[in-house]
């Protein structure tokens, strides 16, 4: 049986380490030091991920860059604690450019959506065949990806309100079904009527304030605050954020493009749907709390 392995080519914090040298055009040798014996063997498939940059939440971004076949693996040194292997890697494709955050909602092995890089932090890990093929092909499970990115961008309060609607009013059996298209439809409706609509009102309010009053410095400081007048939220600042959101949404025609990507007759999407039928919804509490 073929194993599928993901090697992390970066700085590790464990004693596992490796180096990677070109020995001919399509062949590389790699040293792998581990604390336990590995089950990797010749003929296994591998993919390499590299630390790329920082993405949101200060979480690291990984990129899958190379994949191919392991041509040979030899245990070259062994002492009390360490196993040192030398691998010969056949490089199939050098031009893989798949970002982990692009593909994470299409991978069964990812469930930490805030810090997905933690799943690939070790020098090597085994992958399921499905996940390996997804990475190498760059195929995306569009519905789950759209749902995951948008849902997980919301603060806890909105997540809760949306989920209550989804569970109580959508007619979907939330715990049994993974109807991502239905869930997205409801999510779109929630975002538009509750969040984006607030932005439309804020932008209009800012416009009128600026039309009515001369003193622009004072007007820019108008906002809302709690009973004590603490933690003021300024209309000018938040409406500027919404203007940016609407610009991104218009520019990319987000919601319309979405439906064209998620045609029910698409074979790849059907396959993903089947594969993820028993995998949990990609929902996570997130960092904003406690209630709002």
């Amino acid at each position, binding site marked *: 049986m073929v194993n599928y392995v993901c090697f992390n080519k970066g700085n590790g914090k464990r004693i596992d380490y490796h180096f990677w040298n070109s020995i001919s055009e399509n062949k590389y040798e790699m040293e792998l030091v581990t604390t336990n014996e590995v089950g990797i063997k010749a003929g296994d498939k591998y993919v390499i991920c590299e630390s790329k940059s920082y993405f949101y939440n200060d979480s690291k971004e990984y990129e899958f860059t190379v994949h191919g076949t392991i041509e040979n693996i030899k245990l070259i040194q062994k002492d009390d604690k360490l196993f040192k292997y030398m691998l010969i890697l056949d490089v199939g494709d050098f031009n893989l450019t798949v970002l982990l955050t692009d593909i994470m909602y299409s991978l069964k092995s990812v469930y930490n959506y805030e810090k997905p890089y933690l799943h690939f932090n070790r020098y090597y890990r085994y992958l399921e065949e499905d996940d390996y093929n997804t990475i190498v092909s760059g195929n995306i499970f569009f519905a789950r990806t759209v749902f995951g990115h948008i849902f997980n961008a919301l603060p806890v309060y909105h997540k809760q309100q949306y989920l209550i609607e989804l569970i109580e009013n959508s007619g979907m059996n939330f715990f049994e079904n993974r109807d991502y298209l239905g869930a997205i439809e409801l999510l779109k409706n929630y975002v538009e009527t509750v969040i984006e609509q607030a932005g439309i009102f804020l932008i209009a309010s800012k416009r009128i304030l600026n039309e009515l009053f001369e003193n622009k410095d004072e007007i820019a400081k108008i906002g809302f*605050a709690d009973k004590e007048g603490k933690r003021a939220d300024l209309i000018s600042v938040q409406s500027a954020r919404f203007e940016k959101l609407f610009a991104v949404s218009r520019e990319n025609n987000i919601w319309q493009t979405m439906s064209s990507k998620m045609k029910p007759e698409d074979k790849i999407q059907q396959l993903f749907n089947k594969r993820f039928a028993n995998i949990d919804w990609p929902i996570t509490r997130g960092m*904003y709390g406690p209630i709002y």
Partner: protein
Amino acid sequence: MDPFISAIKNYAEELKNCAVWHNSREAVGCALDSENYYIYEFYCLMRLLNDLNINYSIKYEAGKDDKRNKFPKGPAPKKDRPYFKLLDKNGALLYQICAGTEIKVKAGEKTDSPDISFQLAESPLDEPSYEHVKLIMDAKYSESKEVSKGSYNDFAMMIKKLDLENAKIINIKYDKLSGVIGNCLISNGKAYTDDVNYISDDALCEMEYFNEEDDFNIIVKKDE
């Protein structure tokens, strides 16, 4: 990789910044806790002022200290909060227009907090009572786009408690909003009822579909 994926990630990043306030980190939304519509309420106030600006002039009073320029997110005492002055074209102060101010009701010690209140020029800047208030408006945002019976009754009761059943004698010269007479229940979607006798009995008029997309409609009983 499909450019649509980076577009979605971009959109999600911007949405993340929008969905919580930049400073308090509280959620931003039109209908929070089902009774918290302060963003829509403020928008309604702005549209009202914009309309009144044609026949009157409007002055902004910023308030002071910690509460300067800070409108309340919910019912709050008037003290130190910002408000607007409605002046005639000669500069004489006609009304104070306040947002979310707590007002002492006619009987008993409780207060009511209409979203918008027209208060007399001499209304005190700390604790106004029903005697200082001449006309009130309330704004209801509903995702389902229809004012509920409960919301309607809350406003009708507020009018009674603040003794404002005569608010229609106050003559305000609106421009595009002409048609609004007396106390007004404003909503983003459909009004609770279009039965003018029913609402007249509660001394109010309704303004429905009041938002950026639709043309609003005023439901009011005209005097014979």
